[in-house]
């Protein structure tokens, strides 16, 4: 489980995240949706201890991330595909990650196999396509066999086969009882991948609902319709707030 409690992040007078509270539950894929600049990445960075909240807190499995003795065993995260050193070989990158969290060396070969990277393990990451880098990021996230997975924009740069693979992987991981949080702004992809959705706009939580509550016969809309309605209301709400 991932939990945000009144999570707030200010940069000077700009509020990036505004008293955001939510829970991401195990056993299902939760989608994190929002326009560019809504605060998706900032929220994820705070969950992972990369940014310090101005106030409030984020917990993973009940603890703050920075307090975890072996975080890769608790949380696997795919950040943007650029978060690697191009001079390292794929196997070396996974080897240092495994060493840093005292994971058995055999895990490196296992995740290389699961992500289809066995053949390129000895190549420097510099020469990888964006799709290969995404797969390497997924391999790193799976390394510690963690109960919680966070994928930030995982389908960026992937071809249709890769997109289908990520979708299947996310659903399989959730079916194993893990907590899976996937951020994206691709509505059609989210409609196929997620069971539950968190929609944020301008740093606030706009919706925390099941896919079937937002989409389908009862809601009478596609996910894109629902998303545009939600985020438009957020903008108007903010304007009214500023004018007051």
């Amino acid at each position: 489980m991932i939990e945000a409690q009144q999570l707030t992040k200010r940069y000077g007078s700009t509020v990036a995240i505004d008293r955001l509270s939510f829970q991401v539950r195990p056993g299902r894929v939760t989608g994190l949706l929002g326009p560019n600049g809504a605060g998706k990445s900032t929220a994820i960075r705070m969950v992972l201890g990369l940014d310090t909240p101005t106030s409030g807190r984020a917990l993973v499995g009940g603890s703050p991330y920075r307090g975890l003795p072996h975080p890769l065993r608790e949380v696997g995260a795919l950040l943007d595909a650029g978060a690697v050193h191009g001079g390292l070989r794929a196997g070396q990158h996974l080897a240092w990650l495994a060493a840093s969290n005292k994971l058995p060396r055999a895990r490196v070969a296992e995740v290389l196999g699961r992500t289809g990277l066995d053949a390129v393990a000895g190549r420097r990451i510099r020469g990888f396509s964006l799709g290969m880098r995404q797969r390497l990021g997924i391999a790193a996230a799976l390394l510690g066999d963690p109960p919680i997975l966070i994928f930030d924009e995982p389908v960026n740069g992937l071809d249709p086969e890769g997109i289908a693979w990520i979708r299947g992987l996310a659903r399989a991981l959730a079916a194993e009882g893990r907590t899976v949080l996937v951020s994206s702004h691709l509505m059609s992809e989210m409609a196929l991948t997620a069971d539950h959705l968190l929609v944020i706009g301008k740093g606030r939580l706009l919706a925390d609902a099941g896919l079937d509550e937002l989409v389908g016969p009862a809601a009478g809309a596609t996910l894109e319709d629902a998303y545009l309605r939600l985020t438009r209301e957020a903008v108007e709400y903010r304007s009214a707030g500023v004018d007051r």
Partner: protein
Amino acid sequence: MTAVLHAEWIKLRSLRSTYLTLAVAVVLGAGLGFLDTSSVAHHWATMSAADRAAFDPVGDSFTGLVFAQLAFGVLGVLTISSEYGTGMIRTTLTAVPRRGRLLAAKALVVGAVALVAGELFAFGTFLLGQVMLASAHLDVALTSPGVLRAVSSAGLYLGVVALVGCGAGALLRHTAGGVAVMFGVIFLAWPAARALESWSYLPDKLILSNAADVLGQVHALAVKPRLPSLGLAYFDLLLYLAVALGLGAWRVSRDS
């Protein structure tokens, strides 16, 4: 902590830049020492009395140290700045969220590698220089007074420079910026201190390259008031270490 050390060791030994910087240090450093000592041995008979008086059989072997130290400094800078430059720091901090521990591990690993490489460099360069000087019977043995101390201190100094680079890289999070700082600390601080000599010799005594000069030779130093004493030179190393790593630790603890 051992897990983080292991991880940082894998990174350092996997990167080509580690071998490149050390190779540059050896080629430039040992090469220049070789040229200097062979020149002295060749021209000793015709050298002026002043030049003969300035000759130091250990110090002249280390003529190339000034170039080697820049390479060692760059090695230290790169251990951190390359992580920020490539974005890998985000992956590193999710694996090792305790930032103080991360910097400590990086410093210990690069410091140990640089110390070992620095000592190998110092002893190798010294022995090569003595082989050259032997032809003019100017060589000294490692067992001569002060020689072992001078040679091992030159190696120690290279380890310290790498750690100062590590601190500069952590402080600036930028390779070019960190290298510029090392260039300033190693090369530009010296003329700046010279410019202040009419007021005080104190800046001269606190310059890292002057400390290196004092540590890496066996000459009597009392005749050179602008240089630090041997004790002060060792203190200089500690001072630079503390300031660089202290500033680096402060910056690493802050969000990127």
